[in-house]
Structures are given as C-alpha cells and as structure tokens.
C-alpha cells in the first residue's frame, strides 16, 4: 500500500533512479545500438566478462566466496591488489566480474541498498529478497552492457530461515539462477568450475572448501591470462570471505597463505 502513496518505497536504488544526482545506467549515445532485425541485438554482447575469476562454494554450515586480485586493462595488468569480493551486509557478499567501473559501482550501490532497506523497514531483507533485488539491478545495467560494459555479479548469502548457505549466479539480462553446490564466473570461470566439479562433494568442512577454492583459483590463473595467481613476492593472496549463521568474516590472510603455500609445494613435487 505504502508504495502507492510513498513513491520511493524502501529501495535506495529506486529512489536514486528517480531522484539521484544523475540517472542511473545512462548509456552513452554513440556506438552501436542493438538492431531490431535478425538476432535481437544480443550477438555483440559478450557472454563472459573479460578478466577475473570469482567463485563461491557451499560447505556444511555456510558458503565461501572468493576472488583473484588482478585487474586487467587490455594486455596490461592494471592492478595487483584489487578486491572483487565485497561484504554486502552481515549475512551476504557480492563478487563481481566485468567492466571494473560499473561493477564496483554495482557492488557499492547494492551495499547501500541492503542497509537502506534494513533501516527503513527495521528488518533485514530475506536471502531470496536480496538475490532478487540484485537481479533487478543487473537488468538495469543492460543498456550499458549493450555498449560493452558488461557486469556479472555472483551473490552468496546465508539464509537464516533455511539455515544454509546459498549461491546465485546472474546473466547479463538480470536472469537469476540458484546454484546448489558451487559456481565461478569471469574469464577464468570455466577453469575454476572444472576444478570444483572434480573436487566438490557434499558436506565439506570450511577448511576443505578453502582448499578447493584455492585449487580452483590457482588453476584458473594458470589457464587464463586475465586471472592473477597468488603473488608470493608481494604476499598477495586471493580474497576469501566465509558466511555462516554467525555472520560474514574475512578468512585470515595467514590461513589463506598457509593453504596456498601447501598447495604450491605439493604441485612442485609433481613436476
């Protein structure tokens, strides 16, 4: 009811779209517009963002979400310490792949959206509700995607009602698909998925999930030029967050580094 009297409802995104400093997702006017004939303009749309591997994997009692740290600009590395995984609220996180500018903006806007809703309504959105809202926001980015600025997020959250971790993947049109075991996206996503497919089994512990996530990211970095591996010289390791009923937390870097080093020395023995 209030939505009809109160034009903005509880969504910061809707509020910003109507009243913000500038309209959201305004696509530049130059460049190729989708054509009405033949394939409905989707042919020019890259299905997978360039660069990046981000992944999420479920374990007993929660979900782990991780990403590599490299930013790519054409054939150059433009950043070695970029974070692609962000805390969205106490029980969810968003990982991003795609054009860095709009992707970071989407993550930031999503964080404000969840906090805004929580403050206005006095309750947190359900896990399902957060995933659906993100879907609408990705769809809102479609005009920009047609210009080549594709943004594909990966959403992981702990569902407090169902008492389990959940993973949602998206496509460029905002299509939302739930994954029950694991998922990875970005240019190295396929390699990471292949690794997780081999290693995943039901009822993983958090430590096992960490190990699988690192293996997957390592393999992705080996096969994909857009994905950065662990940087042992500078001590840069993948970002890892764990979400359980107790909330979200960063995995300690020492623990990630330790698992990473164990993995590398095991592989060294094989070659």
């Amino acid at each position, binding site marked *: 009811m209030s939505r009809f009297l*109160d034009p*903005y409802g509880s969504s*910061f995104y809707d*509020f*910003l779209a109507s*009243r*913000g*400093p500038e309209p959201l997702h305004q696509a530049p006017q130059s460049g190729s517009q989708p054509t009405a004939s033949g394939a409905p303009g989707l042919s020019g749309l890259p299905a997978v963002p360039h660069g990046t591997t981000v992944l999420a994997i479920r374990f007993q009692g929660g979900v782990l979400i991780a990403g590599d740290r490299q930013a790519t600009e054409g054939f150059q590395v433009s950043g070695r310490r970029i974070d692609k995984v962000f805390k969205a609220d106490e029980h969810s996180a968003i990982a991003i792949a795609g054009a860095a500018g709009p992707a970071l903006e989407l993550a*930031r*806007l999503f964080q*404000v959206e969840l*906090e*805004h809703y929580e*403050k*206005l309504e*006095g309750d947190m959105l359900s896990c399902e509700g957060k995933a659906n809202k993100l879907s609408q926001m990705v769809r809102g980015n479609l005009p920009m995607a047609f210009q080549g600025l594709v943004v594909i997020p990966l959403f992981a959250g702990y569902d407090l009602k169902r008492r389990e971790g959940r993973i949602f993947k998206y496509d460029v049109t905002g299509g939302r698909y739930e994954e029950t075991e694991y998922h990875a996206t970005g240019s190295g996503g396929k390699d990471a998925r292949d690794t997780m497919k081999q290693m995943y089994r039901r009822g993983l512990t958090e430590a096992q999930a960490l190990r699988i996530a690192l293996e997957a990211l390592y393999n992705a970095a080996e096969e994909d030029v857009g994905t950065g591996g662990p940087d042992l010289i500078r001590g840069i390791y993948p970002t890892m967050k764990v979400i359980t009923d107790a909330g979200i937390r960063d995995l300690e870097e020492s623990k990630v580094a330790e698992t990473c080093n164990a993995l590398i020395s095991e592989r060294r023995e094989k070659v």
Partner: protein
Amino acid sequence: MALPYYVSPEQMMADKAEYAKKGIAKGRSIVAMEYADGVLLVADNPSASLHKISEMYDRIAFSGAGKYNEFEMLRKAGIRHADLKGYTYSREDVTAKSLANAYSQSIGSLFSADPKPLEVELLVVEVGQDGKPNELYRISFDGSIIDERGVAVIGGKSEALMTFLKSRWTSASISLREALRLSLEALDTVTNQKLGAEGLEVAVLDRTRTGRTFRRIGSAEIKALLA
C-alpha cells in the same frame, strides 16, 4: 461574497503552536543521555515492533515523539537524506548537524505554510569518535533547533523530565547501567508509573563499535542491566 475573518499573524501562530504542543504533550517521552561509551536513548514505548528510536547512519540515531505517521515520514526522509549523501560523497560526510538542519528547514516551513502544523518533536544524536564530543539536537514542532548537552528529552512531560534529569545527571562518564537506571527513574517519577523492561525501547550509539554504531538493547539485556 462574505469576506473571510481577519486573524492576525500573531494569533494564527500562537494557535498553531498551542495545537502542536497539545498533540506532543499527549504522547510519551524519550530521553537521550550521554554516557561513557556514547549516547543512550530510552523511550517509554509499550510496543515491541513500532519503534520510536531508529538508526539513521553510522554514528547517528533518530528519535521522534508525537504523531507516529508524521515522525515516521520524517524518519524515512532522513534516512534517504543520509544514505544519498553518504553514497554521493563519503560515509564520514554524513553528519547529525546537516540532518538536524534539514529537519529544521522542512518542519519550520511546514509550520508557517500549512494550516495544520506537524505535531512532532525530534531528536537527532551523533556519537563523537576520536575525541570529538557527542552532539544532541532537539528539533521542535516549529522548526526551532536546540543543541543540547548531556541530556535531551522530547515528548510527553519533557520539561518536568528535563528538570529532574538536569539535577541528577552528573557527567558523561557514567556507565551504561547508571545511565539506564537514571533514565528509568526519571520516567517513573515524572509519569507516576512503574515501567518494566517490556515497556521500554532502548538503544545506544556505542563508539567502541566500528562502522554502524547503533545497537538496540533487548528486554533481556535491559533486565540484566537493571538487576
């Protein structure tokens, strides 16, 4: 055509003020008090779900007394103001001072322009971090804004409560337990009733927390603090 009756501006404003004051005095009171780790907010509120105290931003809380629909509308507007500002600039640029000013402007212009003034009194408080003092702003139905120190009260018998608390509140270094007990004692004495933990809505802005400092204190914790 009959001419409308002439009412002098003084009379009109006095009538409006009286109307608004009456509406606010009918309600229950809310106390804000500085304590060692931040600011405590205590509302005489029998409802567990309809809040009078709300989180506004990282270091800012809001509280409204008077007509529920009116202060609820102002609360939502304030959250939009704060979130938009924080999103456009930076989280540290959102301040209670700017929010209180915005409230003062809109309530003030409604008071002079609208036939019916808003029957609300608001509190906007900010907890100071890194050695900065706390800020307590009280905004009246006519848009006047008062920068309080130590203790602030809105709604109901606010004047009597303020007199009581001014004589008893000693310094901002009191503990949370002491602050809560003093607030409850004031509410009990002035309203001549015995408020239990269920009849209270309590929240703090706790400067020892990082990020969002607002925290609600549930009835179990209130009981433990009062025990």
